[in-house]
């Protein structure tokens, strides 16, 4: 986490608008596929292209997924919601309007709890969600050069989105990132969004304003768009707070505007001011009728809700005795929790040991390779094998790390690696006794000094035995035998 501190005397007010693409098979208003990566316009059917005469029909999956989100954040699911048209011209908007929900969104209210800081600094905050509404995504403009023209690919046009609008409840970039991560986790737990920020499945816009500490009125805000990672979100908000505070401290004024975050330059850039904003001429879409949901439907959807991050974290603490922090880390993403649960699914698994490994070795490996846990080169069942061998004394933690590295680099089975590399820990008491006796025999001076009271020399004997065992002796057994031989005789 960043150690950014807001300029003294100032307070930031942050609200987020998050667009999450829903993981439906087909589009929100047509039967075209939503799969990513097809040939340009191969997944744009007559409806998506907005051909003359075509009409929209609403996808049940999109309604269900949006409702699941609402249920997950304890929001109200509108029994009657409806669609409006937002009119503006843009080449990637085929009909000249976006079908969205302005007046009656499907999800109203709701909240999520976020935690910032660690240990004693840990603080919980409740962030309120204003609304979440269904809408269609636009296509893409490709600016590579086509004889000085722009190419339009409408495959994405009509992909269902929910736009999740928060209250301006966040006061620091850290809180904003924690909130965005929590929403990201929730949509992935629900299986309603793949959460891929690079491909634009999960997009975050931030509304940022600043005000003198103690002031209750909001300052003028800027909307930051085009933030495609949590790190950039943090940086973009930090930059924007600094920009606004600088302006105000030097007698300037913040102008309401939309800004783009440029990760290469690490700055936000003016896109348009309020004055150039279009008049969207919203009105009820006459091609779609009110969406009415009955209690039974909503009840059946509620029954589909999986265990969500907060509940899971609570269970990890009570059931596995994990710390709040560890439980929070392990449940922060659905993929991490799934990995962890797969590891401890093994009979006799030690959840604390597993937690340490997932948060330690696994996280470090992924970090080094810049991979997501879903692509971890050491799959959960291999890690479970490995931890089993630590548990039964075959491997020490240190040897375990060596096996883990081998698994990551070459794959293969845990036992085969142990065998091939001769990494098996020596726990056989007879063999260890023999090695201890040799060391004692070879170092009479040190033995005398130790027995004369130089306790610190114990470590020397352990080192000598381990050296003789090429590091493979079970350290606990070495300690026991040494103690017996040195102290007992």
């Amino acid at each position, binding site marked *: 986490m960043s150690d950014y501190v807001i300029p003294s005397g100032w307070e930031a007010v942050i609200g987020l608008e998050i667009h999450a693409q829903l993981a439906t098979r087909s589009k929100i208003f047509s039967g075209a596929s939503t799969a990513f990566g097809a*040939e340009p*316009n191969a997944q744009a059917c007559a409806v998506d292209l907005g051909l003359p005469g075509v009409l929209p029909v609403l996808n*049940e999956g999109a309604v269900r997924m949006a409702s699941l989100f609402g249920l997950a954040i304890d929001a109200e699911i509108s029994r009657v919601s409806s669609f409006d048209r937002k009119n503006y011209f843009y*080449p990637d908007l085929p009909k000249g309007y976006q079908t969205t929900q302005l007046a009656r969104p499907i999800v109203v209210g709701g909240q999520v709890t976020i935690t910032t800081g660690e240990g004693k600094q840990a603080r919980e905050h409740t962030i309120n969600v204003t609304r979440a509404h269904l809408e269609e995504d636009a296509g893409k403009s490709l600016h590579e050069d*086509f004889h000085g023209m722009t190419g339009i690919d409408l495959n994405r046009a009509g992909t269902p989105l929910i736009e999740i609008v928060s209250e301006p409840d966040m006061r620091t970039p850290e809180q904003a990132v924690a909130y965005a991560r929590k929403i990201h986790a929730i949509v992935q737990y629900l299986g309603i969004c793949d959460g891929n920020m690079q491909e634009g499945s999960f997009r975050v816009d931030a509304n940022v304003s600043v005000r003198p500490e103690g002031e209750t009125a909001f300052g003028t805000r800027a909307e930051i768009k085009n933030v495609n990672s949590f790190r950039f979100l943090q940086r973009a908000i930090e930059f924007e707070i600094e920009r606004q505070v600088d302006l105000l401290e030097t007698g300037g004024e913040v102008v309401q505007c939309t800004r783009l975050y440029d990760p290469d330059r690490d700055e936000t850039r003016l896109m348009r001011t309020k004055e150039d904003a279009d008049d969207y001429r919203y009105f*009820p879409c006459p091609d779609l009728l009110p969406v009415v949901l009955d209690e039974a439907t909503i009840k059946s959807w509620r029954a589909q809700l999986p265990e969500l991050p907060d509940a899971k974290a609570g269970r990890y603490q009570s059931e596995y005795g994990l710390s709040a922090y560890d439980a929070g880390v392990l449940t922060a993403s659905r993929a991490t929790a799934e990995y962890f649960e797969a590891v401890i699914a093994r009979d006799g698994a030690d959840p604390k040991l597993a937690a340490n490994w997932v948060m330690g070795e696994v996280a470090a490996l992924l970090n080094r390779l810049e991979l997501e846990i879903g692509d971890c080169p050491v799959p959960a069942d291999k890690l479970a094998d490995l931890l089993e061998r630590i548990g039964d004394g075959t491997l020490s933690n240190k040897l375990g790390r060596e096996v883990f590295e081998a698994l990551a680099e070459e794959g293969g089975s845990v036992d085969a690696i142990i065998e091939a590399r001769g990494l098996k820990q020596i726990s056989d008491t007879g063999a260890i006794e023999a090695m201890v006796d040799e060391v004692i025999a070879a170092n009479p001076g040190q033995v005398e000094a130790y027995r004369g009271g130089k306790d610190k020399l114990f470590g020397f004997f352990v080192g000598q035995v381990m050296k003789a065992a090429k590091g493979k002796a079970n350290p606990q057994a070495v300690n026991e035998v040494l103690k017996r031989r040195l102290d007992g005789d």
Partner: protein
Amino acid sequence: MSLTNDQLQAVAHLARIAVEPDWAEALRSDINGILEQADRLDDPRLNDLEPMAHPLDQVQRLRPDEVTETDDRETLMAAAPAQENGLFLVPKVIE
């Protein structure tokens, strides 16, 4: 309510329709003629009525989430005024 020339130009821009000066006056007077009729909506009987968006009291039907369309790009793009490599082409969009 009547439309000024500036308003007409602003509306024309929103609609992406050019209103040349030689048409503006006649058009403005036509539109104002239509808007004059709208004064009849200043009727107190309307105040408490529920706005009516649709003639029938029906609710939206939901389509099962199934892919029913296959790639028909060649047919669907046949009428494109300008295209290349399966993309519609427009004058450079500056972002």
